[in-house]
């Protein structure tokens, strides 16, 4: 529950001024509603009494009837203001929370990010955040307002009517209503958790199925997926039905409570009138207020029934980032790079992340600006790991890597990325246009520059055929072939114009003619950069100034 408290503070702090005004109006609405009915009941009864007594002319009808009109209109307006303020502030807070969650995700260790399932991170930012909208709107605010309203009603009723009437109403609602709602909270905790979990599982499952659709069809497992989705759906439906049963049951209990409290007030008022403590008009206030205060408890059950769902969502939203390697480039101060120094590796040893096998030992090399180094080695020899280490994605086991004369540890990550770019072996494109995919690397990209880079990676004709830079791509860049996607990802990396360019199998999936053209294009596009390419192909090796086979650095087992 402390998590829900943190979420409430977070929502409140997004716009405390709007929230406090909204909260104040929430109370005003409830009090005005009770006052309206109370005043109307008193007014009618009092006029009735005056009429019977024949003193109608002397009765001041204008102030009470003006009061009725004021309360009626004021309440409607106050409700509008209250809803607008609290909803707006809450939605602002939730939009900000989504962005914060995204930002926190970006800081995950690279290894965790690469393994991350998009669908689960997505439900965190969408469904879980959505689940939290009720924390203030349906739980904290209405509960607080109900308690305040009952306190005010108690004071007013004991002043205007009589203590027994005020006490019956306050005790009836607070104790009776409280008991019903606590019971709702306890009974719904589990099914509301279950309903949300099943619904999210359904959503994740659907994303998984759609993303791996071809694979599922080819393996003949579509019915299996379907059975899993159906099971999640059935679980969600059963839990929701259970929740609805509790919810409508609580609604019934609360309505009965209202009827009982009103009946009690009706019953005890007679003797009070007989005793001369109150008159019939004052007694009517009690009855009408008792009816009006139903509004304080009836809507609460919805928020209370969401407690389990909210609590779980809060827990996931506030969860810590996964553990993993600390970022390598985590310096705060801007370094003073020297472009002439290029890339230097000094006695570097590497351990493969998460594996027991030893990797590379004692590797020293340097690459000067304008030079290209081709690294070869069998699959799994550590080419990708070495590039990751140079790119400060994973730490080295021993030794030092210097980028532009500055050890990696002395770079702040964003600064380092301005000078060094890595094209990983697997890269994801974005849905949107070809231009969107390029602009993510270079905002405000000019058409000429776009064409230049597409030409460098031998993709300009393909893009032209598809309708130019505005050509749309599907999810994850769907619509391009493997080789085309690869080249677009490469173009995106080239657009960073880094002083040190690291390429992991840049021409994978290309025929050798295209591969040669692409490698030549890269060197033409970035003539002054250090280029390190991990490769098993001739295209890179032929053009490279230096070649390195990792075999020599793999320790004997």
């Amino acid at each position: 529950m402390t998590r829900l408290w943190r979420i409430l503070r977070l929502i409140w702090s997004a716009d405390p001024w709007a929230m406090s005004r909204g909260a104040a109006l929430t109370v005003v609405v409830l009090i005005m509603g009770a006052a309206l009915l109370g005043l109307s009941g008193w007014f009618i009864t009092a006029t009735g009494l005056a009429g019977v007594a024949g003193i109608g002319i002397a009765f001041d009808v204008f102030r009470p009837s003006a009061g009725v009109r004021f309360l009626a209109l004021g309440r409607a307006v106050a409700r509008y203001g209250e809803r607008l303020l609290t909803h707006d502030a809450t939605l602002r807070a939730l939009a900000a929370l989504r962005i914060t969650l995204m930002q926190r995700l970006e800081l995950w260790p690279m290894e965790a990010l690469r393994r991350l399932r998009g669908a689960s991170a997505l439900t965190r930012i969408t469904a879980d955040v959505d689940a939290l909208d009720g924390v203030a709107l349906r739980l904290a605010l209405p509960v607080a307002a109900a308690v305040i309203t009952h306190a005010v009603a108690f004071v007013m009723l004991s002043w205007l009517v009589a203590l027994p009437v005020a006490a019956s109403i306050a005790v009836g609602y607070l104790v009776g209503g409280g008991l019903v709602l606590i019971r709702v909270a306890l009974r719904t905790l589990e099914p509301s958790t279950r309903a949300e979990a099943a619904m999210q599982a359904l959503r994740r499952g659907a994303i998984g199925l759609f993303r791996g659709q071809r694979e599922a069809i080819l393996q003949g497992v579509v019915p299996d997926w379907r059975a899993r989705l159906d099971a999640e759906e059935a679980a969600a439906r059963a839990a929701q039905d259970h929740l609805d049963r509790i919810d409508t049951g609580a609604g019934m209990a609360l309505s009965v409570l209202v009827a009982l409290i009103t009946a009690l007030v009706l019953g005890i008022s007679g003797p009070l009138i007989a005793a001369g403590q109150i008159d019939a008009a004052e007694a009517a206030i009690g009855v009408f207020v008792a009816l009006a205060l139903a509004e304080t408890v009836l809507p609460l059950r919805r928020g209370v029934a969401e407690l389990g769902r909210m609590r779980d969502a809060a827990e996931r939203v506030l969860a810590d980032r996964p553990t993993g390697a600390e970022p390598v480039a985590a310096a705060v101060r801007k370094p003073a790079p020297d472009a002439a120094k290029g890339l230097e590796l000094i006695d570097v040893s590497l351990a493969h992340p998460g594996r027991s096998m030893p990797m590379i030992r004692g590797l020293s090399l340097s690459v000067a600006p304008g030079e290209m180094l081709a690294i070869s080695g069998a699959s799994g020899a550590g080419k990708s790991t070495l590039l990751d280490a140079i790119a400060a994605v994973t730490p080295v086991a021993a030794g030092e890597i210097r980028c532009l004369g500055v050890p990696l540890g002395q770079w702040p990550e964003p600064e380092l990325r301005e000078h060094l770019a890595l094209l990983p072996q697997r890269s994801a494109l974005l849905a949107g246009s070809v231009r969107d995919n390029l602009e993510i690397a270079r905002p405000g990209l000019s058409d000429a520059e776009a064409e230049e880079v597409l030409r460098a990676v031998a993709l300009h004709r393909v893009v032209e055929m598809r309708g130019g830079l505005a050509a749309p791509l599907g999810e994850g860049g769907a619509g391009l072939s493997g080789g085309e996607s690869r080249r677009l990802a490469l173009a995106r990396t080239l657009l960073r114009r880094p002083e040190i360019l690291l390429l992991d199998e840049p021409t994978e999936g290309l025929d050798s003619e295209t591969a040669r053209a692409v490698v030549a294009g890269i060197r033409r596009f970035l003539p002054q950069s250090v280029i390190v390419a991990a490769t098993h192909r001739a295209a890179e090796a032929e053009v490279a100034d230096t070649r390195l086979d990792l075999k020599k650095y793999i320790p004997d087992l």
Partner: protein
Amino acid sequence: MPAKPSARDLITDSPKRLLRQSSLWALVSGGLWPLQAGLIAWTVAQWAAGELGPAAWAAAAGFAVLGALRAASDRISARRAFAAADEVIATQRRIFLDREPLRIDRSRSSADLAALLSEKLAMLAPYISRYTPAMSRVRVIPLLFIACTFYVSWIAALILLVAGPLIPVFMALVGMAAKEASEKQMAQIGDMNALLIDRIAALPDIRLLNAADRSRADFADRAEGLRKRTMAVLRVAFLSSTVLELFAAIGVAMVAVYIGFSLLGEVTIGAWATPLTLGEGIFILLLAPEFFQPLRDLASAWHDKASADAVSDELRALAEETRAPVLGLGAVAPRLSGPAELRFDGVSVNRGGACRALPDLRIAAGESVAIRGPSGVGKSTLLDLAAGLLRPDSGTILVAGQPLTDETADAWRARVAFVPQSVHVPDITLRDFLDPHGSGADLDAALERARAGAIVAALPQGLETRLGETGAGVSGGEARRLLLARAFLSGAEVILADEPTADLDRATAAQIIAALGDLRAEGRTVVVASHDAGLCAAMDRVIDLEGRA
């Protein structure tokens, strides 16, 4: 005149029946209120008359009993309405899941579709369980209360009669704005989900490109857009219910003032009993707010209808998309009998708006063929057609001597192992990935033949490892070899491989070529799309796709 399509069309007979029952119980509940109001009015009148005997307790008890009956009717009504909503949503979900998993080449993002399936479909619930019953209550309860009021005072009834009908006129105006706002909100939900799933998958790249700030700004745009759209929907909803409350408030206040003046004897017309008695006054005062209540319920549910209409439009648009489903059901089927051969006769296919004719093919059982051609010439399309993932627009494809149709596709795929260019790994263990149907076949032998044994041995959790979505955790070359191992394992007689040597170093590529040769030697049919000269040379035959684009 054909009715405009709306969410109402989604409510079939069975939920309609439930909704009728729900309405009936709601009417029972509504009909009980005049009785309760009568008891209060009588009691207050007794007080005023100085009659303070125990009869008041009997009235109070009656009020409580009627209140309990009313609460019970309300509950039954709500439960029936919930059941109706549940049924409608379940039906729509079933229709969606029957169709979408078999339609590939979507233009919409997976996350967008999943949001439609979960979040947006759920938005039908308030429409069905709140709006529809409110609509049927509006048709009866106000009339009932007008009749009760009229029985006592025709002026009070007239006041209600004037204030009431203005409301639907106003609501119709609000309705149009609400629909538009809801449509925009639905679109924005889809947008945000689509952007998110993409950006989350691309986060490692985005970070390497130092583009996190920009990417987050894009996302912030969407999140902020969703807030604005949602707020626009809420604003319309709040406005409509506020206007209604104002109408109701004015109506009730006028009734109250009229009653006050009548009771004082200043107004002597309008009531059948002259002058109006206190009990009658209280009675119609208690009815007045309840006269407006169904209208207020309807107003607060108005945007539910708008949301539901927007969702149903989206469902309809999706259903009407012309994408053909893949052949078959994507299910396990007994293997298709006949020789493992493949024939294309005059096949052409429309892909990406362009009609592409494919050469006629005759691939005999046990033959190995390389499909060669530059990138983008249609090699992958050909393999998709052969696997029944695409429907040809003209021509016929014969597999195992039979036409490839919905009836034969699953049975044909049971004999086929497809090694795609890029892999999507479901969130399951490597063991389940390699052996999806739990055949218990010899995993180690298959891994060895695909030269993938060392990969699994190096993983800390071995076959129990869960790989990332695009195979993260193993290198590109390793993932490809695992896929090949699966092809070996399944005992498939036809291997369709899209660039199987693309990301393997020369030594491993040579091993893979040899392994494909092994398969061929066992009499399996091997079709590879490739431009790798080494691989092409190892096949019996090479078919060039050049110039056919």
